[in-house]
């Protein structure tokens, strides 16, 4: 009896949250598409998300690219496939590691910051104040963040892809004794248009998820500093999970003919 009640309650909470998130998403997207646009806010968010995430994303990409090359070389040597390093590094990085790692790193940085900022505005009544000053918080706070993140993540991931491949290149030529010219030629030969496209599409989707989760959890936070803390955690966790889930979906759409 009590157990059934528990299942029912969990189900109801889940459905309520899904519905709330659905409405929030539709509302946010519709504000992204309709003028007026707060260009100054979009610009400052783009700098914050794109430019200030560069060090984190760049370092992650550099070392991961190098590790990938090393692992493939070591692992590949068991069946004489050392020569595949360049090809596997570029495909693996551009298709998967670049967007996913970039997305996760930015989720940790940006989702959390957005949830904390908007959450604090919520609990200190700043969002109510916005409303009474006839400014829609969706238009003023949420749309600029969504637009900026969706546009900037592809740029970031493009940079991450290049740095990641460069990491593999540096390690391979410097430590594993590959010929630089040959390595670069293989890299370019292996890379296809679809790989880059999928990388950028994934990045766009992840950017949208990152901003959406940050804004959603911030916007619905309640109960002072503790509430903002909970919102921040939830934003990062849910953004990370949704990134990994949507990564599968986009991969399936692109590469399963």
């Amino acid at each position, binding site marked *: 009896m009590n157990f059934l009640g528990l299942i029912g309650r969990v189900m109801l909470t889940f459905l309520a949250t899904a519905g709330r998130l659905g409405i929030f998403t539709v509302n946010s997207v519709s504000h992204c598409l309709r003028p007026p646009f707060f260009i100054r806010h979009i610009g400052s968010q783009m700098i914050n998300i794109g430019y200030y995430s560069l060090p984190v994303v760049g370092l992650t990409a550099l070392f991961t690219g190098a590790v990938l090359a090393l692992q493939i070389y070591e692992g590949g040597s068991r069946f004489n496939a050392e020569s595949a390093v360049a090809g596997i590094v570029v495909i693996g990085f551009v298709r998967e590691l670049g967007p996913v790692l970039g997305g996760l790193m930015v989720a940790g940085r940006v989702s959390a910051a957005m949830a904390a900022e908007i959450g604090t505005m919520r609990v200190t*009544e700043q969002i109510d*104040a916005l409303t009474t000053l006839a400014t829609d918080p969706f238009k003023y706070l949420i749309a600029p963040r969504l637009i900026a993140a969706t546009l900037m993540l592809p740029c970031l991931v493009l940079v991450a892809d290049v740095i990641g491949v460069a990491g593999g290149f540096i390690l391979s030529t410097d430590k594993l004794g590959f010929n630089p010219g040959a390595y670069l030629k293989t890299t370019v030969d292996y890379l296809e248009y679809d790989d880059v496209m999928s990388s950028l599409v994934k990045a766009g989707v992840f950017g949208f998820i990152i901003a959406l989760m940050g804004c959603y959890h911030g916007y619905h936070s309640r109960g002072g500093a503790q509430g903002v803390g909970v919102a921040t955690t939830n934003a990062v966790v849910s953004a990370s999970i949704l990134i990994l889930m949507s990564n599968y979906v986009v991969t399936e759409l692109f590469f399963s003919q």
Partner: protein
Amino acid sequence: MTGTSTQRMPKISLRGVKKRFGPKVVLDGVDLDVDDGESMVIIGGSGTGKSVLIKCILGILTPDEGSIKVGGVEATRLRGKERQAFLEKFGMLFQGAALFDSLPVWENVCFGLLAEKRIRRKEARDLAVEILRQVGLEADVANLSPAELSGGMQKRVGLARAIAAKPEIIFFDEPTTGLDPIMADVINSLIVDCVQDLGSTTITITHDMASVRKIADKVGMLYKGKMIWTGPKSEIDSSGNEYVDQFIHGRAEGPIHMDILKL
């Protein structure tokens, strides 16, 4: 707007407004009329739902039941553009000031005017300085961020923001809390000026009887979710209502019991 029509229509009219949070009933059928250009003061104990009441009028909170009419228009059902236009009539001073901490003080003050594109950014700063003067703040405050101000200064910036657009209707949630008595009197005079010069309709929430006596045309007392007494300021001392008497004299003994553990 014809203010002197034979059938006087209140500017703000509430009927049977109810609001609860979970099991806790905060407003339990509030009726309230405020005429055009009138200064209404709402008094009542801490936690009786005064702030909730004005948030319901603004639509920040949605009442569970009841009707809220502003200028004859049912406010609870407005959406989109209509709601936007509705909100442009209002100014509001929040109890906790609620300044935008990402913006400097001057941008806070002129936020509404800038958002409605009624002034350009270049003019906004000068205008902000002028309005800040009215609330007793120096010009150099304009460039500070809200976090650099004291509580009372934040309150006054919030007040400046509320009156900057010269709105038709202004709500003040505890405008003088946290101010010294002299500054409190300055702010009270400012509110009186808003009503007299701008012709604004105001609702002020306060615990401060000096404010009540200075700014009120009409006084209402909220207790246990209902307006238990409303009347003109002149009748407040002879209301014959023991709840009101206890409140205005600040007595611990009386019909209003504070649930406090006696040691």
